[in-house]
């Protein structure tokens, strides 16, 4: 089926962002594993898997709309020297994701593509939960102290 105007462009932006997210979370998970924070490693690995599932869904949908997904483009992958840094980078990333998805949702509504809108709405639910998760971690660190927080991340 042919896509409505501008929809494929938005979906492509989402693919690029999600692909960057996959790289980003794989790296952060490996770093946490290297530091000995098994629990965080699994949480972040899980996140990479979820983002992969998102990419998969969006690519399917782009092909269905007769588009050609570009798997070449990649945004900046930021890293950090501490768990807190990783969380801050992750939070910023998810916030950008939410903003992009909201723009795309608004565009689909305007263009009258309600199936694409519905798919993006499912995705934005996940992204908002991710934002919430990072905010919770950063707040917990403030409340219990970094040492206490980190020592809880050693065991899965």
């Amino acid at each position, binding site marked *: 089926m042919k896509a409505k105007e501008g929809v494929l462009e938005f979906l492509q932006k989402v693919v690029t962002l999600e692909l960057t997210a996959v*790289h980003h979370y*794989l*790296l952060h998970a490996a770093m946490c594993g*290297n530091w000995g924070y098994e629990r965080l490693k699994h949480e972040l690995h899980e996140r990479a898997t979820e983002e992969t599932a998102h*990419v998969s869904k969006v*690519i399917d949908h782009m*092909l269905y709309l007769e588009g050609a997904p570009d798997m*070449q483009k990649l945004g900046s992958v930021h890293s950090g020297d501490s768990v807190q840094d990783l969380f801050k980078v992750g939070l910023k990333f998810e916030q950008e994701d939410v903003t992009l998805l909201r723009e795309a949702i608004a565009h689909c509504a305007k263009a009258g593509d309600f199936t694409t809108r519905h798919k993006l709405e499912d995705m934005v639910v996940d992204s908002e939960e991710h934002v919430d998760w990072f905010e919770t971690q950063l707040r917990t660190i403030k409340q219990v102290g970094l040492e206490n927080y980190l020592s809880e991340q050693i065991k899965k």
Partner: protein
Amino acid sequence: MKAKEGVINILNKILTADLTAINQYFVHAKMCENWGYERLHHKVRDRSIDEMKDADELMGHILYLEGVPNMQRMNAVQVGETVPEQFKLDLKAEQEMLGLLNEGIVHCTKVADFTTRHMLEDMAKDVDEHIDWIETQLELIEQVGLENYLSEQIKKEE
């Protein structure tokens, strides 16, 4: 543990090739699914997942050697517009990967990093198997004809 000279550099090159391969297989798998070739869709998707596991292992090993994994770089993702074209591009990617792995294995021997060498040898074995699989598919297409080959790809095996 500190890495021997040049090892991190080679591991990062292999990581880049792996990250590229993940995306290439991913999009090829999806295209096969969109064309209705369920069997190929699953085969190629599994390959993408294999590459992801390799990337994961490489990152872990680079960090263990106190290096920084480069997740930013990617080579050209070569997308084929037909099934045989996809096979040819994937074959090329796998052959390049094998070249890199072999280089890495030789280098690790030279600097006496045998754990890294062992890991790269395991990866090279997988690449060999995949090259063999793609060559078989291309040969099959030659022998039975493209239409017959493709019609066998519509159903996934049990």
